[in-house]
């Protein structure tokens, strides 16, 4: 049973205050950032929390810092801010591309990168890009600040490595080199009753004719965003060729576990995942 009246909403003014509140209330508190996921769950009667901690006034969680080796994006930075950031456009254009496809303008104005990470949806559009960029997530609590790799942050379907008293404060993106190719692909419209959606964040660097670095991260094909490690292993250190590409696509069978409740839909997603990889390799090799 949901309850809409008499909920307590705290509005801390500093990160420290927010952490203190989190430490006090623990798992009974629900963090609220842009609210684009929380309000949906509340409306659907799927979320019960007695206490909300509204992070929206915390300006120290906002902004994009252009550091020497990385971009540090504050957790409350909205997708609108990300897709308009020259630094993101230069060093992580695929993230801007992903931000553009998230909801409509209203959602982009409210939805935050930190919220997208914390919500831990396997279909989240920003996560495959963060994964292929090997992003780090910066966490804070009254106990400490720590950084966790995006690869170990999402531990299962809608599960994360966040402790009950922890919150996300920023995401760190190592800067990519200008000769790297990074792409974001998204196929399919919303859930529209069948989850026929596939998202790929892909990154590749070729040096001396061989694949020096490769990162392939898929969304909507497993309980979490997944790296296609088997396909990456086939490509790494090799001279790209159509034959190599086919082997990499075949290896996706070991990497991806598309949801199998609607069989044809799973087959579609598996096939489209392969087609997107083929397309990425084809395009990357043309340049």
């Amino acid at each position, binding site marked *: 049973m*949901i309850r809409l009246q008499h909920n307590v909403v705290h509005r801390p003014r500093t990160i420290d205050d927010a952490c203190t509140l989190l430490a006090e209330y623990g798992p009974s508190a629900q963090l609220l950032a842009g609210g684009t996921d929380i309000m949906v769950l509340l409306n659907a009667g799927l979320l019960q929390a007695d206490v909300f901690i509204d992070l929206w006034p915390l300006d120290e969680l906002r902004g994009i810092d252009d550091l020497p080796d990385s971009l540090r994006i504050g957790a409350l930075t909205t997708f609108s801010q990300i897709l308009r950031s020259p630094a993101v456009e230069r060093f992580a254009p695929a993230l801007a591309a992903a931000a553009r496809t998230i909801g*409509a303008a209203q959602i982009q104005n409210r939805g935050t990168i930190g919220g997208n990470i914390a919500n831990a949806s396997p279909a989240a559009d920003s996560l495959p890009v963060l994964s292929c960029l090997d992003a780090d997530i910066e966490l804070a609590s009254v106990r400490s600040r720590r950084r966790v790799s995006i690869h170990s942050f999402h531990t299962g379907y809608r599960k994360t490595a966040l402790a009950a008293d922890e919150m996300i404060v920023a995401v760190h993106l190592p800067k990519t080199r200008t000769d790297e190719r990074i792409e974001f692909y998204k*196929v399919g419209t919303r859930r529209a009753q069948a989850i026929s959606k596939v998202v790929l964040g892909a990154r590749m660097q070729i040096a001396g004719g061989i694949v020096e670095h490769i990162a392939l991260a898929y969304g909507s094909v497993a309980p979490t965003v997944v790296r296609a490690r088997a396909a990456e292993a086939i490509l790494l250190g090799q001279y790209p060729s159509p034959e190599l590409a086919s082997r990499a696509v075949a290896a996706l069978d070991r990497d991806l576990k598309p949801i199998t409740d609607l069989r044809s839909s799973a087959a*579609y997603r598996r096939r489209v995942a392969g087609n997107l990889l083929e397309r990425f390799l084809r395009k990357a090799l043309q340049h």
Partner: protein
Amino acid sequence: MSSNGKNEKYVGRPVKRTEDPRLIQGLGHYVDDIRLAGELYVAFLRSPYAHARINSINTDAARNASGVVAIFTGSDIEGRVGNVPTAAALEGLKVPKYPVLALGKVFFVGQPVAAVVATSRYAARDAVDHIEVDFEPLDVVVDAEAAAQGGPVIHHDFGDNIAYVHRAGIGDVDAAFASADKIVAQKMHHQRLAPISLEPRGVLASFLPGEQQLTLWTSTQIPHLLRTQVAIMIGLPENKVRVIAPEVGGGFGSKLNVYAEEALLSFISMQLHKPVKWIETRRENMSATIHGRAQSGVAELALKNDGTILGLRYTVTADLGAYHQLLTPAIPTLTGLMLSGCYKIPAISMVCTGVFTNKMATDAYRGAGRPEATYVVERLMDIAAQELGIDPVELRRKNFPTPDEFPFATATGLFYDSGNYQAALDRALAMVDYDKLREIQKSDTAAGRLVGIGVSTYVEICALGPSAAMPAGGWESATVRIEPTGKVTVMTGASPHGQGQETSFAQITADMLGVDLNDVYVIHGDTGIVQYGIGTFGSRATAVGGTAVVYATEKLISKATKIAAHLLTTDEENVTFENGVFSGAPDDKQVTIQQVALAAHLASNLPPDTEPGLSATYFFEPKNFTFPFGAHICIVEVDRDTGDIRIKRYVAVDDCGKVINPLLVEGQVHGGIAQGLGQALFEEVVYDENGQLITGTLMDYAVPKAHQLPRYELDRTETPTDVNPLGVKGVGEAGTIGSTPAIVNAVIDALRPFGVKHIDMPLRPEKIWRVISNQ
């Protein structure tokens, strides 16, 4: 334009909407923006089952919940609030009793079962969860075609699920098919759609016990018709009920209705002597506001080898839902009227079986029956062209009536007023360079690319309509008044809700009276102020309501001329009126319309036997419908790898007769194409086998987003009508009607290498990919 033809300062020009400044600044007042002191809030317990018996309802815990003022169930109000009405009068129609709160049984997911009244919206919603209902699930009927054949019966008294069988059409269809060289047939499905207005429904009812007066603010397209119906339902005299449609954030037909909540909140306010408000949530909007389309049938076309059409047959099942809303059964009959499309078809027959299912009612959604007809005809034309080896454009052209054949009588019993279908099609073809496009398509196909060109030519029936053909009057009203200060007030019985008639009607009046546009104020949507009117739907507001404005203004000018002659001390026939100024021969003295207005109100110097004041009212009855038309061309490329569809170009040439404001017309076409595209590619209301609504949110029901829409290349041809003096035909639904078949035809054309004849909408990537990959 105007009937006196003197001034065209505003009409025909792209005047910016005078409504927009307040709307885009968030200063408009929708129902929820209207706050009354002491208002209470209503939340509904709605059925979670598609079909169930209600064994008991226990409201004790909910009554004790904090903030709760009252709770009403079906049995509390039985016999005290009338049933939800239907206006459709078809022969043999079965009409189930549709109580405003469920009585004994529920028949669809979302049906109101109990209403909680509380001091806040949150308290009301929270208390709903404390109501205990013992539902006993019953057999569910979901598939309309199966339900027509037998199985569980929804409304037991009727014996079966068939609400009616409607036959339409003229001519010997069997003979036409017997003599045909070629018969093409296709089963087609028009999926259920949700109208999704930006503003959902909302009601605020306030009853004053002393005055015995009820004011009902509601998001509706038909304030006057609603007033009549609600007054009957709650037993108040009609003239003690005032319905106000404030800003209405879109309707698309879904607010052309009388809903249970409108009568129930009125009743509750009468019981509690307090204002009560309910604002629909999006989930409620998806489940308990009417749906559209939902037809499934076999369409057949009989042709000669040279492409001449001999006859058309459409055997269709309409999924009506559990109850009739206002026009539920009537919508498929509009399909029957429009099955001739743009073509000379000597014999047409439609047999439509309307079937009850355990779902929300279907009713008018943008186009309302006509998109179904156009889609069926335009798909058949493409299939026939393919099978006869004739270019789809040539096949269409061959069967068009020529401009001199209008008024054109169809085998559906209509007389198309005017048309030049060749001109619209030629213009669209020129815009895309059609012949060259087909050449490019050949080379693209040879290179393995899946490029498709889709053409659709449509005609629609608008300006609804002559009263003889309408359930509750087809006329429209207007009052034009000049105040003592010279400001002009126009009151229209049409109730625009986003179409921009505050601007376009002011353009018409300002030109006719020779006054500044900003001196004209258009009032609508308030039955306490505006004379009785019909409303805005069926692309009628300008053609019928605008015409009423014209005639009322003429009446007013006629009276003003009489007064002017008196002031100018000359005879009426010596007076001319131009640019707001009356001049009188022989000495050319002048008096302005504003001076005449003042004189009319001071009334100390009027001609003998002249009523003081300067106001005129006119009720316009159209003698026919209007029939706008056009040609849409869509070019798509299908992605082999994913089944994704990319619209490369979209060209629309629409002919809605004379244009009052080209900006408004473009806006209507843009929105219409977006919604037609939504049906073609994305949208579908889905109920599962238990009658559970699967697409209950906008995360599941895919409305197109801006980035999924193509750039529109628009043009117009202009073929006036003689049905009204403005020469306007209506454009509100054109885009929705023309676009859906153009897009589907383009996708099927792109998939020609795979031998695809037809795919049912919505054309989602996965569906396309399955066809391509033979899965």
